[in-house]
Structures are given as structure tokens and as C-alpha cells.
């Protein structure tokens, strides 16, 4: 039996955690599973930063979860960019939660990979070499869309969260 894993997102000043989110829609509000059409981003502004983590809720007979990788597929609209704290080198350690903002966040500055990274780019316990041998969560993945003043439409993409599971 495989481990049970979900993606969680934290929002608000009090770090309200929502388990097993169904989308990572980005917009002009700090909200989980938000409706992008109701919370559009003013061109030139940033979306509210997302704080998400990979949460192992049951090991299902496995002994280890590690090698966490995150990336996005499908291009963003216009000249928008997608920034994150996930990175394969010079990882800054666990991202501390703070009330999500629509301005830049320190360490959430790396371009989100658009294909599977070679190695882990999201840590566990502050380290890319970290692992889980029981229920627990990864470090926070912070990511944010940075739009350009000339952007018109938006984008529909897919976020990928990958891990290795050792029996």
C-alpha cells in the first residue's frame, strides 16, 4: 500500500491550514482554492504568495519519503514570471510562514522550474536531503506570480509535486 500524501495550504494571519487542496489558483486575494476570475491580478502587480506543503498523512507501509521536487508546466500568459523558494542549489532552508502578501518575499525569488528538476528542490526539516520516516510535512513551498504591466489574459497551468517513496 502506498503512503497517503496531500498538498496543504496556509492562509491568513493565524496560519490557517487547509488540507488536501484541489487547486493552486493565484490571484489578488489570500485565499485557498480561490476563483481566479473573481480575484484577478492587476497587470504589473503580484499575486498573493502561496504557502503550501507536501503532507504525508499515512506511511502505508513505506519506510521513507524524500527527494521532493516541484515544478510547473505550461507557459504563463504575457510576460508574467513565477517565483518560488524551491531550488536545487543554495536552498535557504525552511521558509518561515508569514501572513501572505502581494509584494515580494525574501527567498521566494527563484524562477519556478518548468520541467522536472534533476534533484530535490524542496526540503524537509530545512534540508534538501531531509526525509520523512513517519507522518509529517515538507518545508513550506512559497510561490507567487509576478505579472507585467502589459499582460492581458492570465494562464492555466499545472503544478507538479513529486516525491520518492521507499517501501
Amino acid at each position, binding site marked *: 500500500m*502506498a*503512503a497517503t*500524501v*496531500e*498538498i496543504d495550504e496556509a492562509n491568513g494571519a493565524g496560519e490557517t491550514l487547509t488540507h488536501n*487542496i*484541489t*487547486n*493552486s*489558483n*493565484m*490571484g*489578488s486575494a489570500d485565499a485557498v482554492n480561490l476563483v*481566479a*476570475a*473573481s*480575484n*484577478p*491580478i*492587476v*497587470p504589473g502587480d503580484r*499575486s498573493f504568495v502561496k504557502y503550501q506543503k*507536501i503532507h504525508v498523512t499515512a506511511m502505508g507501509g513505506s519506510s521513507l519519503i524524500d*527527494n521532493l521536487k516541484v515544478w*510547473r508546466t505550461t507557459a*504563463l*500568459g*504575457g510576460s*508574467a514570471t513565477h517565483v518560488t523558494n524551491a531550488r536545487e542549489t543554495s536552498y535557504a532552508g525552511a521558509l518561515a510562514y508569514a501572513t501572505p502578501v502581494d509584494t515580494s518575499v525574501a527567498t521566494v525569488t527563484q524562477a519556478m522550474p518548468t520541467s522536472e528538476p534533476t534533484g530535490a528542490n524542496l526540503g524537509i526539516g530545512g534540508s534538501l536531503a531531509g526525509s520523512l520516516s513517519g507522518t509529517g510535512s515538507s518545508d513550506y513551498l512559497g510561490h507567487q*506570480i509576478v*505579472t507585467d504591466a502589459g*499582460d*492581458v*489574459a*492570465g*494562464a*492555466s*497551468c*499545472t*503544478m*507538479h*509535486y*513529486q*516525491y*520518492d*517513496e*521507499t*517501501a
Partner: protein
Amino acid sequence: MIFQERKQPNSDEYTYDVEDVFGTVHIESSVKLTGDILDGIVMVLLKQNISAEEIRGEVKHDKGVVQYVFKKRPMWEDEDEAKQPCNDTPTSTQKPESASTRTRLLRIPILSWCARFAEAFREAWKKGAKSQRESDAGKNY
């Protein structure tokens, strides 16, 4: 059980040569197989208890096709005692831990709209709804 895995160049096929006291099994598979699966295939072949020394077969499953050639070693072989015992050391070209490590992927959509697009969409929606109402009203007369 000793097995050697080879990835066929310019192909997605894998071949495995499995050797143990029972004899040898040559396996061609369209998917990568773990040590546990190879062990399972050999156990199934041994349980068939077929008298032929060489057995060829094919197993279709949801991920692909496995073809095998099973060559049984005679039950009593003269030089058996002179041979070194099997040390159960896999000689796979892959890392040993890959046999029990699975990579799993979760995917969720990420959607973002720009304000101009949202406004244009709303305007188009309003116009569409208005013309629909007018059209519906016309039908009533």
C-alpha cells in the same frame, strides 16, 4: 537469486537475466521490473512444474508485456556441489534501493487571471446575458 538488468539502446525495452539454483530465466519487458517482481515471475514459473527443460511464454499486464525464456537446470547436476553458493547479491546496473523505491506525482491546476481579461470577460458575459434576455423576451410575444 542473481539478476542483471539491461536497458536496450534506442528502445524502451528492458532485458533481465535471472540465475539461481533452479536454472536461468531470460526476460524481455516493456517496463522496468523490480527485484520483487522478478522473484514473483520465477516463483510462478517454478510452480508450473512443467517437465520441459525450456519454456517460452508471454504475460500481458496493464503496464505492458513480459516475455520470458525459462531454462530449467537439471535437478541433480554433477557439478552442483563444486559451485559457490548463491550469495543473493543483486548485480543490477541500477542502484539496489531502486528496487523498492517508487516515484509518485501529485498534480493540481494553477489558474490566474489578469484584471483586464476579467473585465473583458464580465462585459462579454453581460452582453451575452442581455441579448439572451432580449431574445427570450421576444419569444414571449
